[in-house]
Every structure is written in structure tokens, then in C-alpha cells.
């Protein structure tokens, strides 16, 4: 199961990186979203896949008697999902506001903070 997931994750990462390198802000944002999900899958796979046995310890035992599914990656992914979701929400608003104010969604044309053709600092004293 893990090799198939590894290939899928690789696919996710390549799509995400391709989109992140785009000049259109919306495509970059889509790249960020896919990037985050690729990482979630990566953590999931890192915890090894075993779905048949739920991670519940029988009442009479202290430790599970058979190999069970790993519950920790789910906790990690849940944290990562919440964080990446809130970041994505902020980025969407930021990108929309930037588009409103700057009149472009092309990151190459966003030069308000760093104007092109700046003159050199004063040379003499």
C-alpha cells in the first residue's frame, strides 16, 4: 500500500510545485492548497498504513495484543489541516485585497513595495 501512496504523494507535490511557480496569484494559491494536502498524505503514510485493526485496546489489556492502526498521524494531520485551512483562508482574503488595491493578480507586476528603476543611493558627501 505504501508504494502506491508514495507515488500519489509525489504526484501531489509535483502538481503543487508547478502551480506555485505560476505568476497568477490564484494558481499559486491552488498550489498552496495542494501542497498542504500532499504533506497531510505524507504524514499519514509515514505512520504506516494498516486500516484493518482499529486502535482500540481491549478492556482487559494494558497494551494492544495485535498490530493496530497508528492513531498518532491522524492527530498530527488534524492539527496540520486546521492550520493550513486557516492560512488558506487568510491567503484568499489577502490575495483578493491585493488584487483590488494593486489592480493585478500577476506577481511579476506587483512592484509597489519594491519599485523598479530605483536610483542608487547618494554617492558623494
Amino acid at each position: 500500500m505504501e508504494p502506491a501512496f508514495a507515488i500519489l504523494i509525489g504526484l501531489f507535490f509535483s502538481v503543487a510545485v508547478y502551480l506555485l511557480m505560476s505568476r497568477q496569484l490564484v494558481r499559486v494559491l491552488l498550489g498552496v492548497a495542494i501542497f498542504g494536502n500532499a504533506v497531510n498524505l505524507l504524514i499519514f503514510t509515514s505512520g504506516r498504513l494498516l486500516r484493518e485493526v482499529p486502535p482500540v485496546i481491549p478492556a482487559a489489556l494494558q497494551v494492544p495484543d495485535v498490530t493496530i492502526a497508528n492513531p498518532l498521524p491522524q492527530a498530527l494531520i488534524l492539527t496540520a489541516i486546521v492550520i493550513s485551512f486557516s492560512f488558506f483562508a487568510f491567503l484568499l482574503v489577502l490575495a483578493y485585497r491585493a488584487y483590488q488595491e494593486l489592480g493585478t493578480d500577476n506577481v511579476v507586476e506587483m512592484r509597489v513595495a519594491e519599485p523598479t528603476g530605483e536610483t542608487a543611493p547618494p554617492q558623494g558627501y
Partner: protein
Amino acid sequence: MAASDYPVDLSQAMRMDPVPPGDWLIVAPLLITILGGALCLMTRKNTDAQPKVAIIFLTLLVLACAGLLARVLDKGVLTMVAGNWLPPFGIAFTVDAMGATLALVSSIVALAAAVFGINDIDKSGRRYGFYPFLLLLMTGVCGAFLTGDIFNLYVWFEVLLISSFGMLVLGNERAQLDGAVKYALLNIVATTLFLIATGLLYGILGTLNMADIARKAAAGGFEGPLMTVAVLYFLAFAMKAAAFPVNFWLPASYHTPRIVVAALFAGLLTKVGVYALLRIFGVLLPDARLMLSDLIAVVAIATMLTGVIGALAQTDLRRLLGFLVISGIGSMLAGLAIGTAPAMAGAIFYAVHSILVMTALYMAAGVMRALGGSYSMRELGGLYRASPVLAAVFLMLAFAVSGLPPFSGFWPKVLLVDAALQDGHGWIAGAILLTGLLTTIAVGRVWIYAFWRGGAEGTADGQLTATLVVPDEVRGPGVWLPIGLLLGLVVLIGLQPEFMMQVAQRGALTLVEPLGYLRSVFGDTVQ
């Protein structure tokens, strides 16, 4: 579940002895800042009360961090585990001298920023949450310095990042939105890279506790995969720390927010990245550091030199300071590249110095803008007559940032250059000294243009054309107290460096010989 239902020996799973009261100091910085942030959020509309609440809680934070540092120096590395679960199952907070020192210095800078913000942040800025963001930013910063769990470190990075977004766009100006887009996207990519490395590390070693990772990585057997993880961590935190060539988000964004926000960011945020690099390559993956040391050295030197050369090419004072922040990161990375205990001590000492002096320089730049009406070196002039005190303050800070005695920048450079020469890295020592010379030129030019000459560009020699009005916004203790506090520390550390030297050496020793760190987490039986 009542204890009688099952005959369970809880000592197998939990620490049964109660936490000593003093050890609560480990989590006190987080509790104080979260509580203060919540209170500030509740009083969001009461714009007069907010600074008071923030200053009270940040004073408490400074006291808690000072107490924590004193306790760490007294008792060695301290550990507290969530729910008292035995490590590596509970999330551990592990504090050593490096973490406690950086937390203390950061909280002092945050307090200074809160006071400076009284004048710099207007009503609308307060209503949009400068003070809640400031306190929550400190939660993230302190959490990152104090945690002993690598996934937890990721969470604290995200806490400080989202707070920094909020502060960066306060004011909603065009340039701010432009800068924020680049800052936000590149920092999110960096934290995601950090998370990828953490996921892979968990897949390899099956643990997230830093001490446990150090133990299992040292046991050997996974050198190849761990090298991949190490390189990913290096890339992620180099982006966070603004190391060349992944630093272009910093000069694109740090000159856009309110000056107090820029001062805070310049002081704190990049240093958290440096801290993570020191922690990971010192304690967690020392073998990988050994193999990467040449790469780190090249990155360090490139960061120092491109930073200071970038500063020489700037007209805007804030952008010049942004490049100096980058240049300082290079010196800290040089300490990591050399990797001996004195070099690591130099890196920690430099981080402390850089936090204080960069914040103070940005604040001084804010006052210069208020007096001279501009951040441009072409338009500034004659400020010496307007405020001789500011001229003296800026000159002292300029000497400090260049590493000239008797200020705080001198000692870490002495440590670093000495360590580089002793370890046979003469080229690193040369680069540090060259950077110091170029920094002196860069900031000396600012002083000559802004303070020494009589007016804006084109003023004839000996004439005074600048208007010398000191506006109300830079009168009063709200401006001078924080600058005075930071400058006082810069001078004090410069004149009496013994204490900071000892603390840095204690911190460096934990990085180079992490046995004390491991024993603090797993008990004294660890070999």
C-alpha cells in the same frame, strides 16, 4: 476510570512525583501571553486600556522568563511533560540556557515594542488588534524557544506566523498588501517544508520528541534518509532565517508595516529560524551537521556579504536595515558551520545582540522619520541639530551593529572569529571581519547623511537648511524609554559581557554535548 477498577502500575506510563512549583515557570511564558492576548482581544474596542493590559502582561512575561533563566542556570536543563506522561509519549517542554536566554531577550524586546507602540500605533491600528497580535506573537516565539517536541515546534511557528500576518497588514496600505503577499506565501512554503521534513523524520524514527530523536539518530542505521531530512530542515529554516539565496521575502516586506512592527519582526522572527537550526543541527542531527558544514559555511558567508552589499545599495533607511538583518543571520550561521562549542556560543551571543540592536535601530529610524519627514537618505539631513541625543543613540547603535567595541556586537564577533581561526576556517573569520567593515561603511553613511550634513541632498557645505521642529509624536517617554532600555542593554552587554558569555557557553555546551538535555527528559539513567 477509578484506580481500583484495574490493577495498573501507573509509574510505567506517567511521572508520579508532582511537578516542583518552580518548574511551572517552563510553561508560564505561554500561559501569560495567551491570557494577556485574550484579555487584549476582549478590550479590543477600548483603545486606551489595551496598551496598559499588554504592558502589564509583557512585564510579567519578562519576569517569568528571567525566573526561568535563573532556574535553568541553577538546576540545568528543565523538562515538563504534558499530562505527566512519560516521554516520549507526552509533549515535552525542555528548556536549556539557549532557549531561556532567547526567550528572555525576546520578551524584553516585545515589552519595548509595546511601549513604543503607544505612540506609533494609532486608534485604528489598536482596534485591528496590534496588541492581541503582539502577545500571541510572543506565545509563538516563546513556545518555539521552550518546546522539546518537533511537531510542537511546527505549531508554535504557525502561531507566530499567523500573528505576524495580522501585524504586517495593519493599516491596509498598498505597499503592505504587496509585501504581505510575498511574505505570507514564502513563509507558508517554508513551514510546509518544515512539516514535510518532520513527517519524514517521524516515518524514519517513529518519534517526535527532540531528545528521543537525538537518541535514536545517534544509535545509527538511518544515515541516508536522515541526511535528506537534514537538508530539508536546512532549506526550511534557512528560508525562515532569511539566509541567502532564499531571503528575498525579507527586503520585499520588512519596510512596509508600521515601524514598530518592522522593529519587532527584525528583532525576533528570523532569530527563531536560527534557533531552530541550532537546535536541530546541534542536538538532533549532529552527524548531518558535520557533513553539511561546508555547505552551511558557504551559505553563511554568502548571506553576510550579500546582506551588507545590499545594504550599501539602498536609499531607503528601512530597506537598508532589512539587509543588515540578513547580514547578521550570516554571522550566526557561521557559528553553526564551525560547530565547536565556542562557535555555537558565538552564534547564541550574536542572536541576543542582533535581537536587541536591530529592534533599537528600527525604532531609531522611526524617530528619524518623524524628525526629518522621510526614510530616504536623499531627503534626510540636519538631524543632529534637531536632536543631538538621537544622533548619539544612532551612532552607538551603528557601532554596535558593526561589531565595534565597547558595544554588544563586539564580543560575539570575537568569539566567532577566534573559533573560526582555532578550527582552521580562516576564510570564515575573514568574511566576518570584512562584513564588519562594510557594515561600518553602510551605517556610517546613514549617520553622515541624516545627521551630519546640514540638510537634504544638494545643501551646500556648512549651511543648515533643514527645518528643526521636533514633533509631539517623538516627545515623551513612550518613544525614548524603549530605545533607552534596548540601548542600555546593548551598552551593558558591551561593557560587562561576562554574564552573557557564560550563559551563551552554557547554551552551546548543551548543543555540543546534549547528554544533559537527554537526561533532563529521560532521567539520569541515559548514557
